[in-house]
């Protein structure tokens, strides 16, 4: 954990920004030009992973490298849950941030990567406070809601964000005994639970992800207390990706100003096609608890 402070500090720099999924050099340039504060390099956006239904793995390092060479903003990439070897490979190639992600097919059904053993920073998904604290305890320096990636449906991100907020709120009124019991249930050290209670928020940066498809969606997540947003399929599965990307970035800056959101939301063409929860064969959010 020697680099904890450096990596936590790095995560702070993404705040109030948008991190965009990109699958090639051209998309990475569109994202940077639109105002993304980082890009996530992956071979297929989540909606394609979902419809393909095949095992999804770490992307080809050559493809990730081509994006690292193309943009000056930080580049993130995904590893399968528990796949510490994919993480070692990404660290060795100098990727700026690793997302241990439920969007890829899990490699280990029992354990996540022991992120405290790495120099590269990690972000992980969470549906509730217990998942968030377990990932922080394992060494994640950034947490994001899982949402339900590749659906263009914001409902799950809202559920996860609210769950974390409400559980943080509940911590405030707990006595020693209750905190100790909760730490046991969550399988995390009591010190981490107390630190979180004292801060009144997670001890790391907390982003929204999974289902953001419009500027109104990203503004909603900011208003619910997210520090920033990840947008996956929502940009390059929309009718006009460059415009949508730019609008989503602006909506994160101006989320408190509905009049500006009106202008930002105008004339963007169709957003990505959304999927109802009931239509899903795979719930990615249930992976890696």
């Amino acid at each position, binding site marked *: 954990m020697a*680099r904890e*402070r*450096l*990596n936590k*500090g*790095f995560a*702070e*720099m*993404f*705040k*109030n*920004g948008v991190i965009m999924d990109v699958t090639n050099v051209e998309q990475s340039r569109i994202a*940077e030009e639109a*105002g*993304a*504060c*980082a890009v996530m390099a992956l071979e297929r956006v989540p909606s394609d992973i979902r419809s393909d239904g095949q095992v999804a793995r770490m992307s080809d390092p050559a493809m990730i490298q081509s994006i*690292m060479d193309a943009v*000056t*903003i*930080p580049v993130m990439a995904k590893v399968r849950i528990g796949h510490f070897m994919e993480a070692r490979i990404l*660290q060795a190639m*100098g990727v*700026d*941030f690793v997302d241990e992600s439920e969007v890829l097919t899990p490699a280990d059904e029992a354990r996540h990567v022991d992120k405290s053993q790495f*120099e*590269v*920073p990690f972000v992980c998904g969470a549906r509730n406070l217990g998942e968030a604290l377990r990932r922080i305890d394992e060494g994640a320096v950034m947490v994001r809601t899982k949402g339900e990636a590749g659906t263009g449906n914001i409902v799950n991100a809202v559920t996860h964000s609210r769950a974390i907020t409400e559980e943080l709120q509940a911590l405030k009124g707990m006595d020693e005994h209750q905190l100790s019991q909760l730490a046991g249930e969550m399988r995390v050290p009591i010190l981490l639970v107390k630190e979180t209670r004292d801060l009144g928020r997670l001890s790391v940066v907390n982003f929204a992800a999974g289902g953001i498809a419009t500027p109104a969606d990203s503004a909603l997540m900011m208003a619910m207390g997210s520090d920033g947003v990840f947008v996956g399929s929502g940009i390059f599965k929309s009718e006009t990706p460059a415009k949508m990307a730019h609008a989503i*970035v*602006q909506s*994160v*800056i*101006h989320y408190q100003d509905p009049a500006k959101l009106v202008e930002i939301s105008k004339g963007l063409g169709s957003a990505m096609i959304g999927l109802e929860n009931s239509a899903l064969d795979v719930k990615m959010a249930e992976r890696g608890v």
Partner: protein
Amino acid sequence: MKVGLLGLQGAFLDHIPHFDHLGVAHTIVRDNKGLDEIDCLVIPGGESTVMSKFLKEFGMLSHLKDCIAGGMPVWGVCAGSILLAETVDGEPGTLGSLPIKITRNAYGRQIDSRRHLIDIPLFGRHDFQAVFIRAPRIEVTDNKVVVHAVLGEDPVFVQKGSVMATTFHPELNEDHQFHEYFLSL
């Protein structure tokens, strides 16, 4: 006295505990109206490409340049120092308010980011733990620029008149010396 925090992207909220501790009012600035309501401005760490883009798009660039030229104190932190520089990677900088040349990401990617102990004679400090994150490198091009701290031979804390820049992140440290000094400009 009101401090502005440029709120286009990045770690602007991280400065609030410092200014709260010093008992100074602050506000987040996202447009020209905001610029008119403040006495000094912090340009925070974050992504310089994003901040530069929206300063231009929101029509804030010339107004902010005028404010700085008119003597409004401004402090650029990391990405903020990139915005203030006269030259960035060989091209004209966004604000051009500080006669320095900047090389972005000069020390490498995040895996190369480091904490370094630096001396700051101005504050009588030895071994200040400075956090450098994908930091830019400064080259001073005007002898009117005062260098307050160096890392090896590279200036990392510079000032000219009421404009100051740090390539590291004092807002991530607990002490308030940098914020206090900025308020004295």
